[in-house]
């Protein structure tokens, strides 16, 4: 690191200072874009374009809006890929196509805030194992999007399950595992063609057993939970220093002074983005006591944790999570596969909801992502068995609005409200029923899956010529 930094610095200093300085100082020349973390914060820009769509209206449905409401005889008007209007018994505008949803149920497109689709693609062969860069415990320089295989057949099966947006995260083998990416769940030749326009980047961090086991077994740090915490703190100290160097440099250039730009560091760019509040921390953490420690680490260095993931003990500190505005993304039925998952309870999510905390059901699994509605139903039933009165309409937020909030896209999607992206699922029956299946899935108003129309049943390249041809 030291040598590289020196050489880069030397190189950069001969070419002069930053772009802004150029106006004030003849000596200052613009930094080459690749050497300036601020020049192109998104080096792999989205090329997503919604699939073709027409304006239309869904009429006659029972609708969960994602805002905690349930509507009868709902009309949803979609114009230019956005929800133009929603209400009970609205007359659809003249001339638009009408989708008759009488007897059907409608929900927002489901959002999975914890997926490894594409980075641990099917088939689960070693050649597809691209989610954990287990060569160093701290790898903020890696980006999940550089591992995503858009042909993962799991994207299609997830869409059949109603999932329109996924956050793809690196794995949890590292203390700091790298950047996550939020994707529109559309078939695409490239990952750029799936990137959710304007969605914030995220950073995967991990507590507990995984990092200490991976590195402890290699005879290196961390090998304990206290080693884990020392690792996070060391990384944030370095990130703060890096941020200060760039701030100083830009201030000097801004004053027209001659200044040597710091060497760009991809990992520290990401951590610096967290400290500036631009990148959302998604923290894998099972145990309540460890979550409380992570909250203090965040306070020590001045960043926020957007959500804890797995967090099977969140119910033990629901008050703390509510007070700190941290979402919890977890399951209902998964437990006991390792010691730190022993204290799971089925009612974790409803207990969080009752405490006023932001509760999310997520999959972390290419099977469960196909049935997030069932997992929400299990959690809801467990809440009711615990005496908590929670409606199905409220529970729908666990797989729509709340994950949207946790990954910073609630202003764009996650609810059926005028102005939002028209990400909509039509179900053949109440999605809290085990028998419910999706009939149509719209993303930005475009039909991306239709159970009754083979023209809207996309298949991965991988499935062609294979048994079943990807009809799942």
């Amino acid at each position: 690191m030291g040598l590289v930094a020196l050489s880069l610095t030397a190189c950069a200093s001969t070419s002069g200072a930053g772009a802004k300085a150029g106006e004030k100082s003849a000596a200052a020349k613009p930094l080459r874009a690749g050497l300036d973390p601020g020049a192109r914060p998104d080096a792999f820009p989205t090329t997503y374009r919604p699939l073709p769509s027409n304006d239309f209206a869904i009429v006659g449905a029972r609708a969960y809006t994602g805002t905690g409401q349930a509507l009868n005889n709902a009309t949803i008007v979609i114009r230019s890929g956005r929800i133009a209007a929603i209400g009970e018994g609205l007359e659809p505008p003249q001339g638009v196509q009408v989708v008759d949803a009488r007897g059907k149920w409608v929900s927002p497109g489901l959002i999975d805030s914890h997926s490894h689709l594409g980075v641990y693609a099917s088939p689960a062969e070693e050649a597809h194992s691209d989610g954990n860069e287990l060569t160093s415990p701290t790898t903020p320089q890696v980006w999940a999007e550089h591992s995503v295989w858009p042909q993962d057949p799991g994207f299609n099966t997830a869409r059949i399950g109603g999932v329109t947006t996924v956050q793809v995260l690196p794995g949890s083998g590292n203390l700091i595992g790298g950047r996550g990416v939020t994707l529109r769940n559309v078939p695409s030749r490239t990952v750029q063609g799936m990137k959710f326009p304007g969605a914030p980047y995220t950073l995967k961090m991990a507590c507990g057993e995984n990092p200490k086991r991976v590195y402890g077994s290699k005879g290196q740090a961390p090998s304990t939970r206290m080693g884990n915490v020392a690792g996070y703190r060391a990384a944030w100290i370095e990130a703060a220093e890096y941020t200060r160097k760039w701030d100083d440099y830009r201030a000097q250039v801004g004053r027209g002074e001659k200044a040597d730009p710091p060497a760009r560091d991809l990992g520290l760019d990401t951590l610096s983005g967290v400290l500036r509040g631009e990148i959302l921390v998604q923290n894998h953490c099972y145990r309540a006591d460890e979550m409380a420690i992570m909250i203090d680490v965040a306070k020590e260095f001045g960043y926020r944790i957007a959500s804890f993931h797995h967090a099977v003990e969140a119910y033990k500190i629901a008050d703390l999570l509510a007070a700190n505005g941290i979402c919890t993304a977890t399951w209902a039925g998964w437990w006991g596969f390792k010691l730190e998952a022993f204290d799971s309870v089925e009612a974790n999510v409803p207990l969080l909801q009752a405490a006023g905390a932001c509760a999310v059901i997520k999959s972390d699994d290419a099977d469960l992502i196909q049935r997030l509605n069932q997992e929400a139903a299990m959690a809801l039933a467990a809440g009711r068995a615990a005496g908590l009165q929670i409606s199905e309409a409220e529970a729908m937020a666990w797989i729509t609005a709340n994950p949207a909030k946790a990954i910073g896209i609630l202003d764009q999607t996650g609810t059926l409200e005028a102005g939002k992206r028209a990400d909509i699922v039509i179900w053949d029956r109440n999605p809290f029923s085990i028998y419910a299946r999706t009939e149509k899935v719209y993303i930005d108003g475009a039909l991306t899956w239709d159970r009754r129309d083979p023209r809207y049943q996309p298949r991965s390249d991988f499935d062609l010529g294979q048994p079943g041809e990807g009809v799942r």
Partner: protein
Amino acid sequence: MRRRLVILAAVLAPLFPSLPTSAAAAPASASETLAVTGARILTAGPAGSLESGVIVIRDGRIISVGQGAPPAGARVIDAAGSIITPGLFATGSLLGAVEIGALGDDLSVNNPQISAAFDIREGLDPASTLIPIARTGGLTSAVVLPQPAGGGFGAHEHDGEVSGGRLTAGGGHELRPNTLFAGQGAVIRLNGAGDMVVRGGVGVVVAFGKAGAQAAGGARGAQIAALKAVLSDVRAFAANRSAWETGSYRELGLSKADLQALVPLVQGRTPLIARVHRAADIRSVLKLAREEKLRLILEGAEEGWMVAAEIARAGVPVILNPITNRPDSFEILGATLENAARLNAAGVTLAFTAPEGAAHRARETRYGAGTAVAWGLPWDAALAAVTINPARMFGVSDRTGSLEAGKDADFVIWSGDPFEPLSTPKAVYIRGEAQDLTTRQTELRDRYKDLGGPLPPAYRRR
């Protein structure tokens, strides 16, 4: 135990006012006659379904299932508005043999002296916390099967770890199996008592396909040859036992314990439970069983629908997980959610397992059944796949699996459709005894439900 049940009843009372708490939770005392009335009874037996039926129980057995008035003198449990089914089966389960997945289990051996002789019933733990949790899914029985060494059970693909073997150095998941036989399964009742084993030696598990090829030295064909050689040795052992014992017979390829364990298999008294996935591998297992005259049960069979007619013709039942539909390996490229429906339509008898070995997530067995229905399986066939079918497949249908006179009183009173997540078991009976539905999880839940109070949660008592 008694105190627990009373408290449980107090907790349940406000939730299910229609169930008298004493009746719902108190165990039937010896020689007491119990009548459960008013429910819709889905017997999974010859009586089919009965509206407002009556089950009469005495000494842990079902005396009668029918309609009409309860017998005079019986203690009556009014279950009006409920649905009653037989207690459900977790099939292909690990219950009793694993507590915390990553900390090891009693499911597999990699010992050339003990392979088919490994009997999973020895070493099952009735005190496992998984068992009461499984009961909350309406399960009263499990078919526990050994796992091939190196099979990767416990290596979870969630949690971002993806394949523990890749993540840990020497985690054991990459262990190559060096035995053809994983061991023998058992049927247990989920009462968590010392008498929980109902029947042992219910089948010998063998993994085929890629896993089997590894055990035989690398190629699928080698495994078939190796199995044929072993079965020939077992027949020779059975026919020349005394000569073998005195050392006057040729050397045989297995230990004495394994040879003995395989005699019932070659005699067709116990089935071969073949864990097999790809259509071509299913065909080769069907052929092997035909040639060797083995009774056969298929487990996995994700591509079973592609050879459904052949499976049906052979009269071979199938254990499958209804939700497996991704091409997760090159052995299951044809996986589909319609597998169960298509096999059933072809006339194949089905039993359902649940994710991750139907252990921690055994309670999801009923959701898998419901999902199979959503994808085309008739409802009654789904109920049979979690009740009477596994009971028949594993030789315990004289005792359980359906609601019929003479069988153990293993049944569940449900608040609604048993496959729906929003339905819950109001009461679970095993051999006529109301089971405690308190679990370690409900205790944790209740301890932390209210976070206030002067003392830390550790002081709370239920």
